[in-house]
């Protein structure tokens, strides 16, 4: 499968297979208005399969948010056809107004004017090592 390389922009690599649309959604990148290519279920020696997002423009990627939705992803910055830097997102300890609490008993479901806040807790070994919980009710985030 051939996808034309980009000249100036970013490549978000090692996105968990099938998650690239969610990554765009969380990063606030509108595919209708952005010149980009999605490669889904590409072969990966490390992960088996992965998604790749190539964006031909200077998009600012919030690495904290990317880490939240695709912790294994890397961001390659491309200038004049060459990768000039690689960035690996680190899991943020706290996220504000990115995830919404799904617990109907949580105070965030009724109280007006408060932020949706989640904190990182150690995940179970079978839960890919990460877990975010609501600051208010401790409900696990559904990403």
């Amino acid at each position, binding site marked *: 499968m051939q996808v034309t390389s980009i000249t100036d922009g970013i490549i978000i690599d090692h996105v968990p297979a099938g998650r690239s649309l969610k990554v765009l959604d969380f990063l606030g990148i509108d595919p209708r208005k952005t010149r980009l290519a999605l490669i889904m279920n590409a072969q990966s020696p490390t992960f088996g399969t992965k998604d790749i997002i190539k964006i031909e423009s200077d998009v600012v990627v919030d690495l904290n948010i990317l880490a939240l939705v695709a912790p294994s992803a890397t961001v390659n910055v491309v200038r004049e056809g060459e990768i000039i830097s690689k960035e690996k997102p680190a899991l943020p300890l706290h996220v504000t107004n990115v995830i919404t609490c799904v617990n109907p008993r949580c105070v965030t479901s009724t*109280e007006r004017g*408060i932020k949706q806040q989640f904190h990182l807790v150690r995940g179970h070994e079978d839960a890919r090592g990460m877990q975010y919980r609501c600051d*208010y009710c401790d409900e696990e985030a559904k990403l």
Partner: protein
Amino acid sequence: MSAQLSSSLVGKSVVTLDDLSVPQIDDLLLKARYIDSHRREVAHTCDGRVLATLFYEPSTRTRLSFETAMLRLGGQVIGFAGANQSSASKGETIADTLKTVSNYVDVVAMRHPKEGAALVASQAVDTPVINAGDGGHMHPTQTLADLATIYNRFGRVHHLTVGLCGDLTFGRTVHSLIETLCRFGDITFVLISPRELRTPQYVLDRINDTPSCSYVEVQDMTDVLGDLDVLYMTRVQQERFFNEDDYLRLRDTYILDREKLALGKDSLAVLHPLPRVNEIAFDVDEDPRAAYFEQVKNGMLMRMALESSVVGDELPGYDPEVMENDIQTIQEVHA
């Protein structure tokens, strides 16, 4: 050291027990014990103070306990019981209610059906807010009452075998007690429940993360009763079972009666957060090992200790070193 500990609580909100350090909890346990034996001396500790009890849902025990605690310290109480008596019925937010009420009072005790409501309240104002229960989430002063009861019976809250029996999946008091006892360490937990109502994994992880603590899970109380120092009973509700046969098969297993109690040690302490329905037979009340009504008293004493601490009023004559000697006497009796 003690003055530093006491002053570290001044102005502090208590939303969960994680807001209190182990030394601060130790200090509150000593204070509660002191208050119990020096009622007259402490009767004017909080003269001129006002407590607001903002109870958005009904509660007999907890609200009366908070209010009595302040009254016994010489302070006064305002508040409401039921959201329909507050401006919440007009759509006022929790934050706005707190910003209003905090102008009137020195400390707030709040119960609300929504989980996390106490955190919202504590973030809205500088006045200390004590969580009196936020839905099924946290009820820190219940756990303080549990700790005080264990402390008064054994002179310690570590180096014990603690059985927790009944609904271990949904019981917030059980999870909070386990997590807090893990902070003190050296506890063997015996988790007695039907398969359907086992302790959640995140609570078991908390025990596993504490090297000095361990747990076993069993289904039958009678198998383990003789090993326990503390038996913490909770109610098993029929609606928690997936089928009625299992409920009928297991229902009686989780009822403590005199026959089962005969299997326990003489020093066993039986606790229950109350109200009970049928999980402890009434004739158990006469047994000296029944500690659940002591828990109610200890809840009030711990609230007295907490309320006076967060408003910054020192208990006249309180000396933690003297109280620690008193506690050592209990420890020696149990040794």
